[in-house]
């Protein structure tokens, strides 16, 4: 993906102003940020794996109300490798909403870029 598309990208939040958004930002460059409506994230993560393994990444944060999804609501800084590996578990899922696939691809591309750049990622839910 063209890394320009990862710069201040609101594609999957436009039209949802007023609703919860999850923002992923490159810690080293705050202009590298994507904004995604939480409803798309819910669609991605709705059926987490229940195979006896602990959850990781956004699956853990979303389903266990931790990290950026804790009640404290603070932004958290994370290593993207764990979050990328976790996201990839959903690559075969049939999403309910037609646009969720695009949001998923964007999140994966962002995390891949962060890994490539060896950069930390800040996650915040607004």
């Amino acid at each position, binding site marked *: 993906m063209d890394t320009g598309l990862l710069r201040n990208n609101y594609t999957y939040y436009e*039209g949802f102003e007023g609703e919860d958004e999850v923002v992923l930002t490159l810690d080293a460059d705050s202009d590298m940020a994507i904004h995604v409506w939480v409803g798309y994230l*819910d669609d991605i993560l709705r059926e987490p794996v229940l195979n006896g393994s602990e959850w990781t990444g956004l699956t853990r944060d979303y389903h*266990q109300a931790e990290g950026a999804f804790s009640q404290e609501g603070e932004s958290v800084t994370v290593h993207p490798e764990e979050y990328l590996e976790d996201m990839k578990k959903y690559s075969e899922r049939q999403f309910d909403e037609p646009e969720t696939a695009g949001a998923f691809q964007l999140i994966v591309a962002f995390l891949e870029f962060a890994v490539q750049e060896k950069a930390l990622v800040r996650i915040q839910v607004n």
Partner: protein
Amino acid sequence: MRSSDSGQAHGTNGSPQMNMEQSQSSEKAKQNEAQAAQNASKAYDLRTLPKSSPMHIPKTAVVTEQQKDGYQQVKYQWTRGEYKYLNRWHQRTPNAPATRGNSWVIERTKPGIARGPNARPAEHEVYIKGKNGKGHWVPKSRWYAAIAARKRGTETKKQKELLNNGHWPAP
């Protein structure tokens, strides 16, 4: 000679000590004015707002005031039993129907369990007003589906009702 604008009867004999006190007084007065201006711009009163909530808000709830893009919001968060509650008062949001004013939206989450005999995903729910005026809990996935449909312009009558009934009228 500089006069204090704090209203306090400080003299101004020009000594460094008095000038520092006057400066601190003046700075404090400016801070008070700024705080008063901020309070005056709030569309709510924290002392009375919780009483208008359709769900009782415990005194121990954590309160967060937010100025969002184009609207104000106050969040009340607390935990009771297995559930984490989020009760939000907010002004009309940018994409809300024109007929909707300020609202309460109430959600709760039962965190999931990754492993073990009770392994399950989290349960996210929204509190919806029923026909009898009482509230009941609905999976948030339905709420999200309704919001997505509204954005596409394809919301059904039931989805429109769900979104209306999940926004409890607020002062």
